[in-house]
């Protein structure tokens, strides 16, 4: 689940930036989201992912339009089965768009990995633990710009290129789904309005 607040007044004031909005992000996993309960206190992993998600979506946001304000992104993982950072980035950019924050484009994220020597798309939790590599990629689909890559595991340079192109293709599919999700909200409203109109017409 992702929520976005802002652009709003920076609080405390010293976090404000003179030339653009300060984009802040908190990634957090619920204590019950994993196999074993995790402490609700933010872990080092949470801190790193907060930074990574923020930096993945920030290139897409016209933050220069809102100097001295903040835009806060809150990513809460309710149930985790691998790929939470990709889901976080995908969700964060959707939430920003839904909040009406001006953006160049959505940011779509998807991971590719390697299991048993095979390059595969979007690892689940078990695949991530037993697999040989994980490569999350975030991108701005309209320009093809990569805003995040991370990797851990073991890949030859050739395998890397293969995994990268697979993740990019996955990202493009997610991008289509993101656009559908944004439209759906308004289609529901449109249907409701039309429904009401037709009833009144009777």
């Amino acid at each position, binding site marked *: 689940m992702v929520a976005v607040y802002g652009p709003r007044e920076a609080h405390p004031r010293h976090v404000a930036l003179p030339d653009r909005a300060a*984009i802040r992000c908190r990634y957090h996993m619920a204590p019950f989201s994993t196999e074993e309960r995790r402490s609700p206190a933010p872990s080092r992993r949470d801190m790193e992912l907060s930074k990574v998600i923020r930096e993945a979506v*920030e*290139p897409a946001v016209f933050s220069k339009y809102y100097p001295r304000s903040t835009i806060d992104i809150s990513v809460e993982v309710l149930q985790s089965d691998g790929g939470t950072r990709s889901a976080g980035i995908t969700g964060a950019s959707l939430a920003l768009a839904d909040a009406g924050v001006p953006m160049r484009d959505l940011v779509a994220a998807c991971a590719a990995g390697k299991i048993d020597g095979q390059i595969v798309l979007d690892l689940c939790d078990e695949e991530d633990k037993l697999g040989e590599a994980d490569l999350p990629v975030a991108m701005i689909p309209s320009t093809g710009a990569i805003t995040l*890559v*991370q990797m851990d595991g*073991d890949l030859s*340079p050739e395998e890397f290129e293969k995994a990268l192109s697979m993740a990019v293709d996955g990202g493009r599919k997610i991008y289509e789904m993101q656009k559908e999700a944004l439209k759906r909200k308004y289609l529901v409203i449109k249907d409701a309005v039309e429904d009401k109109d037709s009833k009144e017409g009777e």
Partner: protein
Amino acid sequence: MSSTRQPSIAKIESKTIMDLMTNNRRLDDRTLTDYRELKIEVGVIDKANGSAKVHLGKTKVLVGVKVELGDPFPDTPEEGILTVSAELLPLAYPTFEPGPPGENSIELARVVDRGIRESKAIDVKRLCIEPGKKVFVVFIDIYVLDYDGNLIDASALGALSAIINAKMRNYEIKDGEVVYKEGLIPLPIQNYPIAITMGKIGNSMIIDPSLKEEQVMTARLTVTIEKDGNICAMQMAGLGELSIDELKKAVGMAVAKAGEMRTRVMEAAT
């Protein structure tokens, strides 16, 4: 929650760097793929099991390794434990402040950790004493003494040199207990990961950005290369973006550079 702050740099300086870059030149007359002057000293701290001090230009990083006994993690009962932490000391730079680790020091530690862990540089299976009960814990502590850019590479070089340099007391296992014997043994090292950090300035990719270059670069990418030339870790950061071609080019640059840097570590640490 913190936001990404682009450190301030004088416009004229930033313009100089950008102008030089259009001719493939840099402030200190390096080529785009050159490291600054690198000096590695090992065994500088006697109380530590292993240590290394790295000078990368004016960046100075000290890494200490301590080996202690501890409990294994429940999901890996037969493996020793590796922990990496990093401290950005207030004396290293005017904006480094004391207090709990911030996201920059956590990221630094985790990127170095990922390189060592994913390349299986330390054979953690050989650090197990009694499965599920007792294992050796290897602490790698990164101390940043002076900051002039590219902390990741300086720290990763230091961490690798320090674990190569590390010696632990010789021991044998009797009834699940550790009994120390005469002499010292090295840590079970089996891979030599090298982190190569690149920055994007304008349309160029440069290796080993200095502090001034970090202040104008729009994106940062670290690629960690194993001894067989495979990639074991990557991390991208910054407010900017890379094209797919730039990303592939950067990975190629890192693969090409890693061998030379590995030789430097091996010369200094062994």
